[in-house]
């Protein structure tokens, strides 16, 4: 956020407000997302105010019956380890991979929000195609049938080199291998991926 950076920390230009963690500062340039918090229900103060602290004996599990799955962050090539805590098939939280030999539990902001790759509301959930300029949902079978039919038609009319496949450096090595193998079986060398650029 250029604006925030200017306001908070730049030594150039004029700054009129001191840095605070005041939410207003962040919200000003980010109105779209300001989330509403539900009104809290009333409760009288009780003895809950007494100080409490955990002793090692009191250590227990926050998510009973959960299991840890070891995985790798999908953002950059450092290959930071991810410890995913899964309870009943739901990824409940990202645990720290403190003993990973490369990352030692460290994450940047992208890696720290790995769980969002799965939970983001922006994820697509249906195959879609444009019809008269509008997006239309369709089933996987229909989508794959239509795509395959069109590809075959293009191959028959124009030859296999009329297709270009842009593969990915964000898939597994196995998948990348399949992408290259697919191009070979399709009959074209028009295949490439991000390592080119």
């Amino acid at each position, binding site marked *: *956020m*250029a*604006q925030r950076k*200017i306001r908070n920390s730049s030594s*150039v230009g004029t700054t009129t407000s001191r840095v605070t963690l005041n939410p207003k500062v962040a919200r000003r340039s*980010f109105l779209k997302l300001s989330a509403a918090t539900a009104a809290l229900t009333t409760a009288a103060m009780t003895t809950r105010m007494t100080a409490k602290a955990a002793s090692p004996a009191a250590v227990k599990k926050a998510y009973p019956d959960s299991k840890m799955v070891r*995985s*790798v962050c999908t953002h*950059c*090539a450092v*290959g930071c380890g*991810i410890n995913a805590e899964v309870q009943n098939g739901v*990824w409940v939280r990202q645990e720290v991979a403190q*003993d990973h*030999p*490369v990352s030692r539990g460290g*994450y940047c*902001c*992208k*890696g720290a*929000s790995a769980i969002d*790759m*799965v939970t*983001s509301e*922006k994820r697509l959930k249906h*195959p879609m195609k444009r019809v008269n300029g509008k*997006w239309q949902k369709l089933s996987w079978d229909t989508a*794959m049938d239509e795509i395959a039919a069109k*590809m*075959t038609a*293009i191959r028959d009319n124009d*030859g296999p080199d*009329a*297709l*270009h496949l*842009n*593969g*990915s*450096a964000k898939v*597994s*090595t*196995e*998948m*990348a*291998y399949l*992408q*290259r*193998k*697919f191009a*070979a*079986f399709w*009959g*074209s*060398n*028009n295949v*490439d991926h*991000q*390592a*080119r*650029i």
Partner: protein
Amino acid sequence: MAGVANTWGYGAMTNSLNDMRHAQAMIFIGSNAAEAHPVSMQHILHAKEVNNAPIIVVDPRFTKLAAKADEFVRIRPGTDCIFIMGLVNEIIQKGWEDKEFIRTRVAGFPEMAASCSQYSPEEVENVTGIPAAQTRKVAKILATNRPASLTWCMGGTQHHIGSSITRAFCILQLVLGNMGKSGGGTNIFRGHDNVQGATDMCVLSHTLPGYYGLKDGSWKHWCRVWDVEYDYIVSRFKEKKWMNAKGFTLARWYEGVLGEEKIEQYTPIKAMIQWGCGSNSNSQYDRVVRAYNKLDLFVIIDPFPTMAAATCTSDNVYLLPCSSQYETSGSVTSTSRQIQWRHKIVEPINGCRDDYSIMEELVKRLGFADKFYKNIKEVPEDITREINRGTLTIGYNGQTPERIKKHMENWHTFDIETLQAKGGPCDGDYFGMPWPCWTEEHPGTPILYDVSKPVAEGGLPFRNRFGMEHTYEMSGRTENQLAAEGVYNPGSEVKGGYPEFKDVVPGTNWKTDLSQKTLKEAVRRGMAPFGNARARCVVWTFPDQIPIHREPLHSPRPDLITRYPTYEDKPNHFRVFTRYKSEQSPDLAGKFPFVLTTGRMVEHMGGGAETRSNKYLSELQPEMYAEVNPRTGHNLGLRDGEMIWIESPEGGKVKVKAFFTERVDEHTIFMPYHFGGVLMGESLAGNYPAGHAPYVSGEPANVCTNYGYDIVTQIQATKDGLCKISRA
């Protein structure tokens, strides 16, 4: 990478991130590790703190990494080659080169030394803007602190002389004798999480998996691996000649659609599958958008709608929601060549499918599933096994799925300093079995070309890839390309240079012997299967045999163009006509006075489809901006935070917010390239499927990046273009 591979055999990071802990000095050029690879910084800062290793950052921009540097060198974009060759010259002039290393393991040194002698520190200052005293100082730091680790990223490669620049980096490390040593090496930080893996599998238009190339022998090798008749594959192509012809690249595929440049293919491109590939990292993005709308079929396979989905408004575009990589499994190769197994964390979310099943459905419908999946029953483990079987060149054969998973389960047993397991089930292995890992007993190679270890324990000499001897054009000298007597890995049968292994199994060599007997034989004899040779300073197959400086195609210094001109035009460069000489003009700098460079920010990744769909990351970086030096801005009458137009010579323009900062100098404009969803001032938010537009959108910087492609690899030149700015 081609530059690196042509120097000593393999084009990959030679050491590992953890190994940088042992560096005595670190030089970063065109790399902003603090933003692009933040976690690597814990090892880098460890070396800085514990070894007192000076950090030298060479960059046009005062990056967050530069904030941690002991020496910040501000360089003009696109002049990396002359700076490095100037350093090499200074080191040679002062006699600081590692003479023994050069005598025994380097080829073409006198020729290179003669060539770089033209780059005195004063000439470097004239071209790069780096004071001559600073060049001398950097040379001294590097000479007195060995081994030094050299790191570069896209800032070093995305130039039309990118392949020369990368070779210059290699030459610097060879001259200093920093190769094959812990704490040294060329540590090329890769971008995406699996660039190394995908590159090794060669999702590339000029080679088959494992860098086998496109020759008939390569096709025959892979047909044997795939267990399919060679003639069948030939029959799939239009004609056999297209099998051996390099295809279009990601950088310029759209020329095959638009038909505005002359293309060398019998048909224009009519269909496109974009599989896990954000589109807005392409330079001249406005032309890419035009190409999208001209396609007959456009399939986007991605967890999030990429910007391509919003820019392509014609019918015939399909969006297939694949799952994220956390919802599927497979191996992934990190920048340190370590292979890790990415376990499936959860099932694909409702409505999504993983990549493997999409591929399976597609192949089934296209009618070659039985041949395609002949040896693949268990996905993805059988695919890994097929890779193990076929990818012999880079030693991908020891990393069986079982071993990779074992490493994942026991990652706590690996030592942070050496990455070697101490005890436990993986005892002696290096973490992730960095390739080459020749056999199932091999521990992996943590440091490439390290002759201090036996081959069976991860040592290697330089690869013999370029013949036995060569006569140099420039000097007429003939040199043996094999390593000198006395250079060998402990336990080697031959105590000096030796050629690559062949005919252990008659009719095959180490790269094509599917029984892998050759590899085992070589390792048994303590020798590297690929031979023991010298690293070359002269690459006789490249247009510039020795790296020389050439001004960027769009140079801000017209006075230097005649002295350092670019190449001749190249008619068939990955099937498309590519302009060099006819593009370079001294008049441009007058009209477009600023240098435009692009880069990453820590909060976003690539085209940003993933990270801009993440509410927390979007909150941290919600706006596209261009960094402008306050002095420049004020001279143009601009105000901080104002909207400005940035225009490229090609006519691409973006409307962005001006951010005044002294990170950039007065001649340079910097833009992050992660944004999308707006095109030339118009929002495309309505073109996304309803509810799936990312939280934040902005102009893609690549609308403005200039024409220009590397002469060898066709990597786009996004870091040294020109632009002009005006108030919006």
